[in-house]
């Protein structure tokens, strides 16, 4: 309520003002794995397909396979141990909430925040469909059934344990003299690959930086 605003803030410095409920609602758009932050709403995969084809397919491809170097959204299941893993919603992402949250805040790229909450439910349902996580195009995703969906790779995330790696765990003094037997030999040249953009003949290699 606004009446409270005229009273001094209870903080130590008394700086700032209380946010109005409308202001918090306008910005508090995040969604958590446990469903906290999900808005009222619903949408089917079929509805999502129409929205997707209109707003998303130009970059992400008709089936989420991506155009050019835009992100791939579907497929890649079973590739995480491959030489070139394909990390998608279906193959890699642990939580469905992240799809809803991210599409709502940042997509379509170039016109963020232009979708309705129902649109985002429908798109999320369709992305499940493109990733073979639901098979029925009439599948409807809603605030109510949202947290019942588990993504396939959810259990494959572990907490950071870098400090236990042998090179970090070993705190002995590093070798200073005669640390390796033979003279150094070149095993790989950047100049052979020649992908540095300063050179005239730029060739894009596979992969990139996410």
């Amino acid at each position: 309520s606004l009446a409270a605003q005229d009273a001094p803030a209870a903080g130590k410095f008394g700086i700032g003002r209380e946010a109005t409920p409308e202001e918090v609602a306008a910005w508090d758009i995040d969604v958590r794995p446990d469903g906290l932050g999900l808005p009222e709403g619903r949408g089917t995969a079929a509805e999502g397909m129409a929205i997707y084809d209109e707003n998303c397919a130009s970059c992400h491809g008709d089936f989420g396979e991506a155009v050019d170097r835009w992100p791939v959204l579907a497929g890649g299941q079973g590739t995480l141990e491959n030489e070139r893993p394909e990390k998608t919603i279906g193959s890699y992402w642990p939580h469905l909430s992240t799809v809803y949250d991210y599409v709502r805040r940042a997509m379509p790229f170039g016109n963020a925040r232009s979708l309705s909450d129902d649109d985002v439910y429908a798109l999320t349902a369709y992305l499940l469909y493109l990733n073979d996580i639901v098979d029925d195009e009439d599948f409807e995703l809603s605030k109510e059934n949202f947290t019942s969906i588990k993504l396939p790779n959810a259990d494959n995330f572990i907490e950071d344990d870098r400090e236990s790696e042998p090179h970090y765990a070993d705190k002995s003094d590093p070798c200073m003299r005669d640390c390796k037997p033979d003279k150094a030999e070149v095993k790989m040249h950047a100049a052979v690959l020649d992908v540095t953009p300063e050179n005239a003949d730029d060739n894009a290699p596979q992969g990139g930086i996410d």
Partner: protein
Amino acid sequence: AAALAGTGLARASEGEEVITEIQDWNRYPGDGVDARPYGQPSQFEAHVVRKNVPWLTSDSISSINFTPLHELDGIITPNGLCFERHHAGIAEIEPGSHRLMINGLVDRQLVFTMADLKRFPRENRIFFLECAANSGMEWRGAQLNGCQFTHGMIHCVAYTGVRLKYLLEEAGVKTAGKWLLAEGADASAMTRSIPMEKALDDCMVAFAMNGEALRPEQGYPIRLVVPGWEGNMWIKWLRRLEVGDEPWEQREETSKYTDLLANGKARRHTWVMDVKSVITNPSPQAPITHGKGAMVLSGLAWSGNGAISRVDVSIDGGRNWHAARIDGPSLPMALHRFYYEFDWDGSELFLQSRAIDDRGFIQPTKEQLRSVRGPNSIYHNNGIQTWHVDGEGVVENVEIS
């Protein structure tokens, strides 16, 4: 001393014309004090710029460019050269229209203007900011030929701002509040979850860098400062902080910034940037041009765990190591500048540097990292970098035995 013949003397018996003839700048006045209200680098430094690699990303709006480390010295990165990484380009925000909201598990949900933020006690700290994907291309071996490209997603800046703690205390964090979501005002509305312990420890909301207002590409008017932790968490154009009891598992902490291991498992919450160093000179973009004799090797070292206690340099590809000289301020979670002066005999060199931080972590070799993690982690590649120098002083990024 170089023979006079090699110095461009017109007639050696007289001397170099740049000395014996009066040059224009010795005679005619230049620009006055009204010409450059905000100064620029010399026209002769036009090559010292951030560079992007078009094929790395789908377009330039969600992409990166790289700091020209080989052209810089000391530990401060000039504001105009701090690498950029945006997810929806540079948000241009009029500071009078910017707000910072604190919501969630707090006693009072608050809104601050920029003027409000400048009424809290300020502090000044120098920190590096490294993108977790810096050197990411090197997981598969030597690829890009220049430290600007292999290591240039880092900068080090003196920040002025407000301790995040003061802002959170002003709102009153509830007992259940263990995590913080930080959100940006740009068109990607960038978000990251930060554990409350870090938020209350050393995080800042910064409004100035290297003395002046933040640059637009670095989050003007405010960014979050998360010392020692991966750059993606340093939310730019910061508009909202939500206190919660669990992490949010946002796109940038699940799809991205998780480290895929060889066994298909992925590490999450890999926040700290590990102990690391790189030789910036000589390097592929900065060959040795002066021939044999006295030379200065220089580089940068840093660790998200604290200060750097030592840097070793090898000129024979890790067979023998020499303690380098760290010069200038040695501050926790800041860049450290090191030098190693030696006489080059003109023979082939394999240059490497190895940093050790004050928690005792030693920068690993790329082989050590690959043997534990495989080649698919993308992030947190802090392996020892090798530059090959040939007899002409030409330098190349290589992998060696």
